[in-house]
């Protein structure tokens, strides 16, 4: 027994020793090594690796900077890891750069060790207007750009063009009212009267509502403090400014056509299998949906339908951004060099081709290669034009308890449809529930 224990101990020590041997060689003197935590997997991961490689071999070599991109799991995992370090107080272990999506902002934006990108840019004399205004504003907090938008996307309407042609519909719908009419025309039933194809499928939640509420009357806010970009939201505005009631009324009319299916997951699959003729989804899903559909039918894309004719705000920019941290290594400038490189026109062009995310730098759009690209890929052109026509002030919402709010919207709207409640009641109920979450959050922060 004792021998077994001794043996075990030996094995343990041996493996520890082995590991120590396997340590990477110490970085060469004079070279700044940057760590970048990201959540790009699959195509995005490969694209990230190639950006990093190119940097390391060109600008990196000149300026003695080497970037080490580390995949850390899903977007939420990057946040979990970073939070773990922040909470244990050892800021030395923070990565120099980290890619987060919108759900991480609340945790990160007030952290002392965060270096706002705007500061780094100013130090370098970088002109921030080179970036797409909508993208820049989407990561602005208290009027400062705290991160660099990187994987930006917006929302789009995808439709089954073959079905449209069969039904004799020439143009995709531009408002919810038109959507209802078109959807009704696309419904197919079998001999028993069961619907085999719906016109449209969606149960709106935060993602869609940001646009459907925010675009009304040119620009509307969903919560106070400019959707959380000026500080913690304390209450919602969508009940006071009537945008929710307006939207719910239109949505109820849409649902009354009987052509809408309440799907919340696997919507892309339903579309690809021909079960639903129109869906809304992110531009980043463009390549995926095309491959899923293959040659079953022709896919068309169009602008995200507006709530009504007065809703002229367009769409907002969503997606992820790169944040910089101060880990006492003095790598701030080096980090900025890399970020500047990754968001330069050329690199953003390559990034876009590989992943479908929007280039965030203005000059990419005027590149010849880019022009040619969107000529050959009209679907991307639709997405880009939609963005250009939008009000850049359309911002996403930075709210606490984001997931609970996500469900609150969905469940509230579902209940309205199934129990035939009025838009006014529903709007009030939603406002009450969501305000409750805000209140709870503020209570926790000691405000």
């Amino acid at each position: 027994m004792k021998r077994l224990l001794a043996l075990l101990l030996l094995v343990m020590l041996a493996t520890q020793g082995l590991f120590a041997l396997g340590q990477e060689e110490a970085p060469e003197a004079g070279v700044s090594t940057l760590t970048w935590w990201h959540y790009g997997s699959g195509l995005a991961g490969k694209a990230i690796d190639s950006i990093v490689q190119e940097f390391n071999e060109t600008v990196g070599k000149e300026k003695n900077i080497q970037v080490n991109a580390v995949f850390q799991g899903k977007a939420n995992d990057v946040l979990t890891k970073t939070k773990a370090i922040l909470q244990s107080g050892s800021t030395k272990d923070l990565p120099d750069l980290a890619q987060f999506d919108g759900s991480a902002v609340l945790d990160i934006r007030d952290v002392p060790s965060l270096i706002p990108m705007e500061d780094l840019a100013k130090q370098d004399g970088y002109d921030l207007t080179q970036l797409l205004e909508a993208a820049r504003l989407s990561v602005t907090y208290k009027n400062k750009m705290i991160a660099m938008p990187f994987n930006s996307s917006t929302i789009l309407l995808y439709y089954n063009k073959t079905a449209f042609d069969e039904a004799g519909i020439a143009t995709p719908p531009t408002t919810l009212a038109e959507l209802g009419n078109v959807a009704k025309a696309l419904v197919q039933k079998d001999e028993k009267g069961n619907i085999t194809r719906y016109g449209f499928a969606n149960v709106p939640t935060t993602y869609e509502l940001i646009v459907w509420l925010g675009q009304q009357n040119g620009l509307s806010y969903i919560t106070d403090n400019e959707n959380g970009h000026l500080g913690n939201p304390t209450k919602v505005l969508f009940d006071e400014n009537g945008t929710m009631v307006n939207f719910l009324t239109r949505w109820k009319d849409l649902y009354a056509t009987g052509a809408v299916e309440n799907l919340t997951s696997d919507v892309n699959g339903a579309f690809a299998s021909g079960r639903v003729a129109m869906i809304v989804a992110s531009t980043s899903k463009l390549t995926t949906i095309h491959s899923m559909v293959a040659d079953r039918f022709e896919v068309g894309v169009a602008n995200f339908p507006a709530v009504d004719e007065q809703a002229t705000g367009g769409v907002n920019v969503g997606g992820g951004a790169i944040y910089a941290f101060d880990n006492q290594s003095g790598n701030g400038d080096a980090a900025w060099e890399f970020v500047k490189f990754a968001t330069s026109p050329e690199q953003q062009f390559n990034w876009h081709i590989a992943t479908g995310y929007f280039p965030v730098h203005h000059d990419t759009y005027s590149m010849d290669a880019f022009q040619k690209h969107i000529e050959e890929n009209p679907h991307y052109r639709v997405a880009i034009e939609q963005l250009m026509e939008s009000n850049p002030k359309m911002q996403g919402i930075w709210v606490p308890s984001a997931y609970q709010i996500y469900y609150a919207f969905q469940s509230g709207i579902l209940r309205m449809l199934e129990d035939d409640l009025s838009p006014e009641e529903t709007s009030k109920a939603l406002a009450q529930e969501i305000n409750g979450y805000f209140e709870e959050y503020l209570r926790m922060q000691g405000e």
Partner: protein
Amino acid sequence: MVFSYRPFLVTILNSFHTVSIMGERFKFVGLENYSRLFASQSFQDSLSNTLRFTLFFVPANMFLCLSAALLANRKGKLATLNQVFFFLPLAVGLSSSMMIFKMIFNPSLGIVNHLLGTSIQWFNNPKAAMALLVIAGVYLDFGFNFLLFHAALRNVPKDLIEVAQIEGASPFQTFRYLIFPLIGPTVVFVLITNIKDAMLISSPVLILTEGGPFRSTQTLVYQMYLEGFKSGNYAVGSSIATVVFLLTFSILLILMRLQRRRVYYQ
């Protein structure tokens, strides 16, 4: 022990305070967090979902695993093959099997709907999603439970069974009066771990349904994960954790009391 107890005590402590998004404890608020929790619709949903899940899952799991063990308890090559097949699910890890399930239960592209000839909306229909969770849960525990039952059955002395059969007992009687009591301790153990697993279920929810559709599969531990991890509401998360613990603990306590009177130990 360090790893289990210290965090546990910290958790309980947190549940009585307000905790900021960065994890700092602010002020003591006594039971206020709990009263808010119980009043919230989200928690009530989690509670009811978890209890319903346990109610469906435990009997189903016990029945399936025990039947499998009984059916495979024969001699011969085919029997051996069955036995091996039955505990093979253990070889597939948690995340692997959940990923596989996610693909095969896909309503439009998955193979289950194709083979069954149906088009059940596994992820969009609350009832189907709950059923899916139960199936996933059973699959995860199946290999291990089967092994336990199998080992227990093998320990039942064959001579006793032969005697019973000679005396004219029917297979059902043999089972009820002879086999079942003899594998008692194992049954209790499996029952206890099953209940615990059911109350604490979180991974299938995380990977397959994410609490949907419309929060119909949100379980207690999943809500704790949502609040604690994703939203940074540590106080709420801690409160949920404590509630889960107390609840499961009481259920099991009751069970253990019952078992002491009824189970036969050699």
